[in-house]
């Protein structure tokens, strides 16, 4: 098992599986309510033209989140 990296460090087009939420604050709860759970597969679709925010795809829908929030989602890149 590869060491988890930050979701914000994932390459564009790459998929990963969520491993950990190092910060259990209200913000991370809302991320989980939106379906980002440990074990959920996400794909980094693109970054916005200025590099931030990110667009990810999970559970069949697209979500935009800022890099500063994506820093608190640790993922394990999938093949």
């Amino acid at each position, binding site marked *: 098992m590869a060491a988890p990296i930050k979701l914000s460090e994932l390459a564009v087009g790459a998929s990963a599986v969520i491993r950990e939420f190092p910060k259990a604050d209200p913000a991370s*709860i809302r991320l*989980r309510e939106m379906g980002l759970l*440990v074990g959920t597969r996400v794909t980094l*679709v693109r970054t916005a033209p200025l590099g931030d925010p990110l667009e990810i795809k999970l559970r069949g*829908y697209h*979500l935009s989140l*800022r890099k500063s929030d994506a820093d608190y989602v640790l993922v394990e890149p999938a093949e």
Partner: protein
Amino acid sequence: MALPSHISSTLAHPSSTRTPVYALVGNPNCGKTTLFNALTGLKQKVGNYPGVTVEKKIGTAYSQHGQPITVIDLPGAYSLAARSPDEAVTRDVLLGRRADTAQPDRILCIIDATNLERNLYLVHQILDLGRPVILVVNMMDLAAAAGLTVRISRLEQALGIPVIACEAVNGKGLIELKVAMSRPDLPLARHAWDVPAAIAPAVTELQASLVSHDCKAPFIARAEALLLLTDHDSVRVAGSTPLHARTAEILHTWQKRWEDEGTDWAGALVNSRYDAIGRIAAEVILQTGETGPTPSDKIDAVVTHSVWGWAVLGAVMTLLFISIFTLAEPPMNWIDDQTAILATWVKHAMPDGDLRDLVTTGVIGGVGGVIKFLPQILILFFSIGLLESTGYMARAAFIMDRLMNRVGLNGKSFIPLLSSHACAIPGIMATRTIEDPKDRLVTILVAPLMSCSARLPVYLLMIAALVPGDRVPLLTKVSIMIFMYALGTLGAFGFAWLFKRTLLKGAPPLMIMELPPYRLPRVKDVALNMLERGALFLRRAGTLILGISIILWFLSAYPRAPDGTTDQQQLAQSFAGRAGHLLEPAIKPLGFDWQIGIGLISSFAAREVFVSTMGVVFNAEATDDTAPLRQAMLAAKWPDGRPLFTPLVCFTLMIFYVFAMQCMSTIAIVKRETNSWKWPLFQTAYMTGTAWILSFVVYQAGTALGF
């Protein structure tokens, strides 16, 4: 919480004449508004929840037998653990926490078939409430196109409630839905899921306290207990009943205990809900087709591209402004003509006197001057609605977020601010899509700094007076204009930055935003929304506009000059004229005299009124051509013979108009949108204060430099 499936619920008063009340709930972007419009048609009432600026929409649908059914369209929500005022209202209505809205008898949940799992999260929370629920699975056609088969009967089996497949856009499934809604009794959900063991005792204890202290029904109490445990810092809004002290105490004791133990209590509850949903989804969804890039993905490859994205954004915004200015012009002229015709008609119909003058000049003239902007406002509402319903709005916010973040705002402030270049009113009303209350307030506070179309005639007049010669070179005109627009925009961002750093400081909120698939706009829904917002504006600002119009008329009409005096003399010796004199010491350091002072006061009706007031003040023929007025203004002198409208004064006056808050309609709307007089007054003070200081600096520095 497994319930025997034979339990069913009957409406509270099946035999009484009370119409059953349904609450319509669903995630944002799931087609809820389309379904609501399809169910209720034009039988809707739009208002506000008292104390909060959240739209309250209630409509009447008719059952198969023609019985009326009340439907409350609750704001879109991802979860009942509210993170925005919209979601807080949805939560509070469903939990019966709002005294102004009756707790709904039944709940209509609408979900997006293409996005079943996340949509089911809210449904899962709602089923906890123990109320009869009908589930509408919308966008079945889009799911099929995406290669998904949603097995409705399996879903019905798993949940134990009526589930209806639907395509709200073309009315498919509507009859079946109405049949279900007309049923005298509905089965309650077969709703089993495991509350995590660590949390279960807290749920029981909270539930007991909610029943005994907060007088909740057992089911609602349980749902509320579960909700309180997912909510770290729930959003409280006005009108919501607070928790009993004992209940709050129990909650804090448990939370503290878990925090000390390191238990991720809120996360555990979310996980267990998704576990249950995952089991249902595995039964219900069949991936039958290939999942290549969807049409939406292909559009996004261009629209959010690092180069093409800007081009598309620029093109969309240019088109928006061209359409506002070209489409709005004919109806604006028409309204101008009609108010003139109406005023003439009244003039003939009424006997000569003050009352006639009040009606023609004060009421018809004053209100007409504001109504004139209605076409522009409506076109903006329509355009914003179009951008929202196609899904482009979210992309514009996605592209602009980084830039807006520099001043502490987020991407969703972009369209409201940009729209304010045409008119701040639709811009301010469009800030309702900004979830974070602080970001929303800051956007409202700075929006009127964006130069609006009512400032345009003032700028044009000043540029004409500023530049010598009869014909102003286009380049000069354009560059001064661009400078003023840029100054306003810069000011707006500067103040946003300042307010976010001082007045409305706070940790940056989580900025997440769904990028929904592109959809063809539903012109009918967008048009309906435009009319509702237009009516809302008139209703909200109407009284104030009427009142201020009458006051402004009174100020310029009294005291009466003796018969035979000209309009110019009348205005000069009126209260407005005296106010101008009174104002002169305050504006003299800016290079303005009392006559310009009258113009500043009258601009309060709408900034462009400055031009017509100057026409009266300097006794110039009122025509479409500014040349006579320009001549008259250039001839105007101070008592000591110095010319009044020097290029520096014209320039300073423009600076003043960029920053000053001089629009009663905007003040009325800000009052409504912030629910207090505090913010519009603050806004008027800071804007006008800035206008004064900057004008002072420009005029004094300019004078010192010899301009």
